[in-house]
């Protein structure tokens, strides 16, 4: 149960008392929120007294009589709005002049309640205003969190972009200073590494665009029928050279399914599985890519004989910019976005991805895409 601090401001003690009694037991419930809300009530007999309460203890809502001795209800409202306080106010007035209403609304009153009012009218008005207040605060909090997440994403992203720049600048400085002599040939490995790091940077930029495009839903998708074996053999061809350089064998067992998908989506899934299986494999290792049908669902499994992961490492695998950093991965380039993109694409199909891995022995990814086999 959460509290809403409600301040009742009226010079008539019986009025304050009866409102308090009516509202004490009122509970505000929003169907999708875990907690219910109830009112913690404070009373004040004048605007001056109310101002002291607000200044010292604050308030979330106010039930405010317009006609008060000394300062008027609208004066207090003006004070609240000048201090930019977030207090939702219901103005009570016996004199429903247009002027009062306009003035009160201009100073931020959420509702005008005409005297005399019934208990039900009071409850309805309070409930409506309280719900608005709760929602408004939740929105503000979400917005704050969104900003923080975005900042964190950009912070890590800029680090990932700065690293290759630092590496390339470092090599250029070495060449400029002729640190290891005058023969250009001795610098070829540095040049090769620089090209590799710049390629990685290019890849990071396009991955990041893919990721944000998928998240925003802007990515245009064309769902058509394709032959799974054709797509797989094209994707295997794409990693062939990389695999052969390290004597890694790729075996595939793919039935000739017809699948209805967006071509780019299925390519993202297969390339990610295959490139990871190559990158994190040992020299002379194997990759086994298989497909099965479970009804209309497609189950793809990609198993490698690579370096594997510990349980703790598999747990955080799909988070953005997660890279498993250890002795065995220090020579492997990557940006830590591939698997979060893979997961997001799979989610578009209401599918799932699971990983089983043993450190030092290998990893197996299982992807299930429901309803795509035709």
């Amino acid at each position, binding site marked *: 149960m959460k509290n809403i601090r409600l301040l009742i401001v009226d010079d008539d003690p019986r009025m304050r008392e009866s409102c308090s009694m009516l509202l004490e037991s009122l509970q505000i419930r929003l169907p999708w929120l875990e907690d219910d809300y109830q009112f913690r009530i404070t009373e004040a007999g004048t605007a001056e007294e109310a101002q002291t309460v607000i200044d010292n203890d604050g308030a979330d809502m106010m039930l405010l009589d317009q006609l008060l001795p000394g300062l008027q209800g609208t004066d207090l409202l003006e004070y609240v709005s000048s201090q930019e306080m977030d207090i939702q106010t219901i103005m009570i007035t016996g004199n429903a002049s247009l002027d009062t209403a306009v003035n009160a609304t201009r100073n931020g009153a959420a509702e005008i309640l005409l005297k005399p009012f019934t208990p039900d009218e009071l409850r309805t008005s309070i409930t409506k205003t309280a719900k608005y207040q709760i929602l408004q605060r939740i929105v503000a909090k979400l917005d704050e969190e969104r900003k923080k997440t975005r900042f964190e994403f950009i912070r890590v992203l800029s*680090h990932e972009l700065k*690293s290759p720049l*630092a590496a390339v600048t*470092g090599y250029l400085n070495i060449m400029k*200073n002729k*640190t290891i002599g005058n023969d250009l040939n001795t610098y070829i490995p540095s040049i090769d590494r620089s090209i590799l790091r710049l390629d990685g940077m290019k890849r990071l930029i396009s991955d990041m665009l893919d990721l944000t495009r998928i998240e925003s839903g802007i990515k245009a998708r064309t769902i058509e029928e394709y032959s799974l074996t054709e797509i797989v053999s094209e994707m295997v061809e794409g990693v062939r050279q990389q695999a052969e350089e390290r004597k890694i064998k790729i075996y595939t067992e793919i039935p000739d399914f017809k699948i209805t998908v967006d071509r780019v989506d299925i390519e993202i899934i297969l390339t990610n599985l295959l490139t990871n299986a190559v990158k994190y494999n040992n020299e002379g290792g194997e990759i086994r890519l298989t497909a099965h049908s479970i009804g209309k669902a497609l189950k793809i499994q990609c198993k490698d004989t690579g370096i594997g992961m510990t349980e703790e490492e598999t747990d955080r695998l799909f988070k953005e910019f997660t890279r498993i*950093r250890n*002795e065995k991965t220090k020579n492997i380039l990557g940006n830590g976005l591939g698997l979060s993109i893979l997961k997001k694409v799979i989610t578009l199909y209401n599918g799932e991805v699971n990983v089983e891995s043993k450190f030092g022995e290998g990893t197996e990814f299982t992807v299930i895409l429901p309803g795509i086999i035709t």
Partner: protein
Amino acid sequence: MTTTAKKVFLVDDDIDIITQNRMVLEAKGYVVADAASAKEAEEKIGDFAPDIIILDVMMEHPKAGLEFAGKIATEEDLPKIPIILLTSDGLNPSWLASPNFTWARISKVLDKPVTPEKLTEAIEKILNK
């Protein structure tokens, strides 16, 4: 250089930063060893017994380097060696929240990428103190 070669320990998870700093320092006559994580650095530091450490900050986790620096300052079985922090993150304000002892061994903070001159100058300055 003095008659006995000084030993520099490069700790960085970026293999290219290690490679190029190794090129620069070996050309200047230093003996170099490296580690790709704070964990690996802890394992290697005892045997290598470096005179100075060039330390990255963001490695296996965002503050791995700072934690390692803190351990060097406090743990008895780790040798007390001056450290140069080498980072692409500038002087990140969130680091300042790191416990005081972390800073005890850090002699200098350098921004990545560092020029060969700046790196060797910083090392020489600290070793000749």
